[in-house]
């Protein structure tokens, strides 16, 4: 019997097989991890939906596998109707005709498959996508739906390069936020001639996913970065107190929960920063919820899971959630759900050093806030009408914004409001739902 790659999550059609956890001949129990699949969002473990012996592994480590593709063959029994795993195992029945666009790339499998209908797209002369026969062939072979490509040729003609871009760029529409247009990297690839004293490693997995995501962001959003400084002396004191309380409850309290709360306060006043641009429909989507992505550096690279519903969580609750999500990121235990629904992102560069960074927006969000190192600094303070030099806890906050949606003045006003809460954290207690 065959075990096919189950659904990986909303909008995710493929992933890289990074590791097999079983080998040929292994006895496998139901729900035992079979392999690790890295998608452009997360690494997930695929549990078995059967019990029995592995007869053959049908995919290699490093290979990009598609949902529905045969991963392994086994001798044993498939476990049906088994709760949570049932929904994960939502692969099409083998007898169901699968449209060619969803068929696996391996031609050998196409021939052995039962009767399948091919999606040849619209063939009406007056309305079909403008593409030459050779371009249509390329699209068909790669499962690319020409109807979804905006051609770059005259009159919107779809060129071979347009299809190649879709194929090479992972432009399967697997972009968080729904109807965002598929990403296409620019034409032309850099080639670097082989040289001595150089090592070549495959550019894939999370590294490639990061590259795609960053390129996509820069291709769409028009970035600008605004930096403001803040006196965080009061916040340092407050955090110290809360930290002690947290320790008693087994929760590690960092500055992040406070920053997130101050962000929500600012976003409520300037909701445009909590929006996305639906380019296809030409509409700005205002999010009435506050899910803050958190940039986390892992051994494999950068990842940005989402802390959900920040508005309605207490500081301690948030601290707990952040601790959990960081732990799961570092142990590769994040799930697709952890990446879903972000509305703005917070990146923390301060743990290493530097004055401030100019972060890249986690597209299709329109804003990313950079929290930098806190340092002690002599500043001029006004005390009882006279100016004095005082030593204060100080930091810089940088915010990168998509200027298509957020103007500089609005961004600056948001920062002013945000920093008002940061400098006077007691104000946070005036907010509801703290």
């Amino acid at each position, binding site marked *: 019997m065959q075990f096919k790659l189950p659904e990986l999550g909303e909008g995710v059609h493929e992933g890289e097989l990074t590791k097999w956890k079983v080998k040929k001949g292994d006895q496998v129990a139901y729900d035992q991890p079979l392999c690790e699949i890295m998608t452009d969002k997360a690494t997930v473990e695929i549990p078995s939906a059967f019990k029995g012996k592995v007869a053959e592994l049908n995919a290699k480590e490093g290979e990009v596998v598609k949902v529905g593709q045969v991963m392994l063959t086994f001798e044993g029994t498939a476990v049906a109707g088994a709760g949570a795993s049932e929904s994960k195992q939502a692969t099409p029945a083998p007898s169901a005709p699968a449209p*060619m666009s969803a*068929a696996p790339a391996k*031609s*050998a499998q*196409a*021939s052995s498959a*039962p*009767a*399948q*209908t*091919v*999606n*040849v*797209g619209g*063939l009406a*002369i*007056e309305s*079909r996508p*403008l*593409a*030459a*026969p050779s371009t*249509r*062939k390329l699209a*068909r*072979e790669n499962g690319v739906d020409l109807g979804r490509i905006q051609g770059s040729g005259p*009159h919107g*003609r779809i060129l071979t390069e347009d299809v190649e871009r879709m194929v090479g760029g992972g432009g399967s529409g697997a972009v968080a936020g729904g109807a965002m247009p598929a990403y296409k990297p620019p034409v032309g690839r850099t080639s670097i001639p082989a040289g001595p004293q150089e090592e070549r490693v495959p550019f894939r997995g999370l590294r490639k996913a990061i590259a795609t995501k960053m390129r996509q962001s820069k291709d769409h959003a028009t970035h600008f970065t605004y930096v403001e400084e803040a006196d965080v002396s009061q916040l340092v004191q407050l955090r110290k107190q809360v930290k002690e309380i947290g320790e008693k409850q087994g929760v590690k309290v960092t500055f992040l929960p406070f920053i997130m709360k101050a962000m929500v306060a600012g976003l409520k006043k300037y909701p445009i920063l909590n929006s996305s641009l639906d380019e296809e429909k030409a509409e700005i989507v205002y999010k009435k919820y506050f899910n803050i992505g958190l940039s986390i550096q892992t051994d494999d690279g950068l990842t940005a899971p989402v802390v959900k519903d920040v508005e309605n969580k207490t500081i301690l609750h948030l601290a707990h959630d952040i601790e959990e999500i960081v732990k799961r990121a570092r142990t590769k235990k994040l799930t697709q759900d952890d990446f879903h629904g972000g509305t703005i992102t917070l990146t923390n560069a301060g743990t290493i050093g530097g004055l401030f960074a100019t972060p890249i927006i986690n597209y299709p969000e329109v804003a990313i806030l950079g929290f930098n190192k806190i340092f002690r600094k002599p500043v001029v303070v006004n005390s009882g009408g006279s100016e004095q030099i005082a030593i204060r806890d100080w930091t810089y906050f940088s915010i990168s914004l998509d200027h298509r949606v957020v103007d500089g003045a609005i961004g600056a006003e948001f920062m002013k409001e945000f920093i008002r809460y940061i400098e006077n954290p007691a104000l946070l207690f005036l907010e509801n739902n703290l």
Partner: protein
Amino acid sequence: MATTQQQADVVIIGSGPAGYPCAIRLAQLGKKVTVIEKGDIGGVCLNVGCIPSKALIYAGTTFDKMDHVSEMGIEVKGATLKLPKLMEWKQSVVKKLTGGVGQLLKANGCTVIAGEAKFTGPKSLEIKSKGDTIQLTFNQCVIATGSRPMNLPGFTVDQKTIIDSTGALSLTEVPKTMLCIGGGYIGLELGTFYSKVGTEVTVVEAFPTLLGAVDPALTSVVQRRLEKRGVKIMLNTKVKGQKTTKKGVEVTFEKDGKTFTETFETVLVTIGRVPNNENMGLDKAGVKLDAKGFILVDAQRRTNVANIFAIGDIAGQPLLAHKGTKEGLVCAEVIAGKKAAYDVIAMPAVIFTDPEIATVGLTEAEAKQKGLNISVGIFPFAANGRALSVQEPDGIVKMIGDAKTGRLLGVHIVGAEASNLISECALAIEMGASVEDIALTVHPHPTLPETLMEAADTALGHPIHIFQRKAPSTQPAARV
């Protein structure tokens, strides 16, 4: 009378213009192919269809030319046509081609079995071959059994006085009179030939127009020529029956409720073609047919039985050799595991009347039916230098574009060499060209394809070699 068991990988039933290209492409893709043919290699097209008919039509046209060369100062005295000699030559052309196909199949390593195949199940066939029986099991099978002329009740074809297209290709005497029943392309092509070699031809058609859905602007050019050469055309007329008399075949017609009779030496029945789906055990294989007896297939030409495919005429309209060839190639690639599909947008059709007709894409009527706002450009052959210098001023090119997008939607040609002009248009439509693309492409002078360029210019409102008044205001100027 031996029975043998054999195993094959891919089996193709039929070696016509669908089957044999399919076999060759499969072989190129590394498959082991067995071709079963109950008749002659090459099928109807090569043996009793496209090729021999075009050989005869060419001869007829050449003979007919003799009547028109005197104005060029050429005197031909006593030109005669010996039909048996012509048939011999035609047969030599056929033999050359079928022999070539046989060699190609062999060179590609295909096994050819002469015999009649019958399914005994979805993976097995029984072949009657020269008295022996072969039980053949296969992995995949391609049905390419084609079609044959449709019978007309009451007109039993004896290939002597009542003939079908096959019989018309091997007469050895020129009939004095001939009735063509059916004003479709086969009737008109063969009728024109016999008219050119001296037969008094009558064409009877039950519908109000000749050539079915072909643009009437094209048909009228052909009809005028036919009438000019003395061919009698009876439209809206049905044939009710016939009886053989000493004088020939007495045919009873009915028009407007009135019946009348007329006698002909020969009656040619060309009322359509039917699929060859009988006596081959399709039910044993479980293959489904549509209401008209054609095999139902998907975009990869796969039948409802996963390992059985159908291509060519047996797989449905349009019944054209080149459509079957395309299907054969698609199907071969599918069987070899490639993601091929039949995604033809522009299916050209050619009719070897005098002058020829060639069409591709939407007709004006079809475009209007779809509610499209179109721009139409018509350019006459009479305004083309080459057409005049080869004595072929009769004809037009009708080019149809989408008025909004400029997209080329259809091209319809009647005129000399129309069959050789249409491929450019098919390519243009497949490539998604605009009418302007055709107009902007340099066409060499002096050639007939210049008519295409000028028809495109006409659609755009600025032809050089005809004077065009400003388009009426109701018709928006083509903007492409």
